[in-house]
């Protein structure tokens, strides 16, 4: 529930950071599909409000170490919004300046996504297909499962 609000909030942040396409997707996926699937799972598992997170020390230490390493790393990252950051000077300008001429599409995100790095997108579609196949294999065919439990019992 609050997770959906979190998605909306993060999508708002993406808009503020000028990543409209990302915001678009995050809104549709995070607040829409993920929420619906999470709810369906909760409905099937019947675990609505269970005992909260147990406080454990070991994970906390790991988290603190990871966080500190990231903050350490962030010191040398160019600050947000710096137009002279190396990441804006190497590959990206070509996309922004040549996209109109080479691909002919004003939305640079689409032109990079579909053309310059189109192969990544093919991978992305494949990932979705993988998830689809996986969920079908796991949740399709109800009858089969019972047989399996039986044979599983015998094995042990």
């Amino acid at each position, binding site marked *: 529930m609050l997770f959906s609000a979190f998605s909306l909030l993060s999508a708002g942040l993406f808009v503020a950071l000028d990543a*409209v*396409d990302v*915001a*678009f*997707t995050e809104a*549709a*996926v995070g607040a*829409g*599909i993920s929420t*619906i*699937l999470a709810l*369906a*799972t909760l409905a*099937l598992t019947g675990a609505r409000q269970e005992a909260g997170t147990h406080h454990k020390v070991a994970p906390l230490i790991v988290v603190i170490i990871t966080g500190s390493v990231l903050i350490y790393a962030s010191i040398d990252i160019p600050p947000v919004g710096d137009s002279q950051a190396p990441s804006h000077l190497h590959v990206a300008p070509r996309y922004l300046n040549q996209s109109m*001429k*080479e*691909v*002919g*599409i*004003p*939305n640079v*995100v*689409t*032109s990079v*996504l*579909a*053309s310059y790095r*189109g*192969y990544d*997108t*093919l991978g*992305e*579609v*494949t990932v*979705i*297909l993988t*998830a*689809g196949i996986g*969920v*079908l294999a*796991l*949740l*399709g065919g*109800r009858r089969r499962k019972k047989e399996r439990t039986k044979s599983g019992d015998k094995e042990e």
Partner: protein
Amino acid sequence: MEHHHILRTITKLLIPIILLFALYVQFHGDFGPGGGFQAGVIFGSGIILYGIVFGLDKAMAVIPPSVLRVLAALGVLLYGGVGLTGIFLGGQFLDYSVLAAEPTKGQHLGILLIELGVGTTVAAIMILLFFAFAGFNREERG
């Protein structure tokens, strides 16, 4: 949701709008935010909304899972097929410039087709996911 009359009426009204909007996002992705993936999700959401309000069986009657499986595979095949066409026309894999006489025209055509492939697969898989989750355990309960 039998007793939600207003909801049912409004939903009936909204679903065509949603599907139209999905198509708009699909084909407007070149100029504004959006594209195949987003359109696929919105299209899928439209059908999912139908499934939520009117029940799984009705939604499955509209788009049977077997059709969705074919569509999901077709989307990927369309994408890959465009790539392979690039090879056959003498370019590299996924090179759209060779698809038409002018490179930019080819790029346009290529992007249109692959976005269509993305949209098809994503929409089909999203609906399939919903069907799989919502339909799990159904027979047991009657």
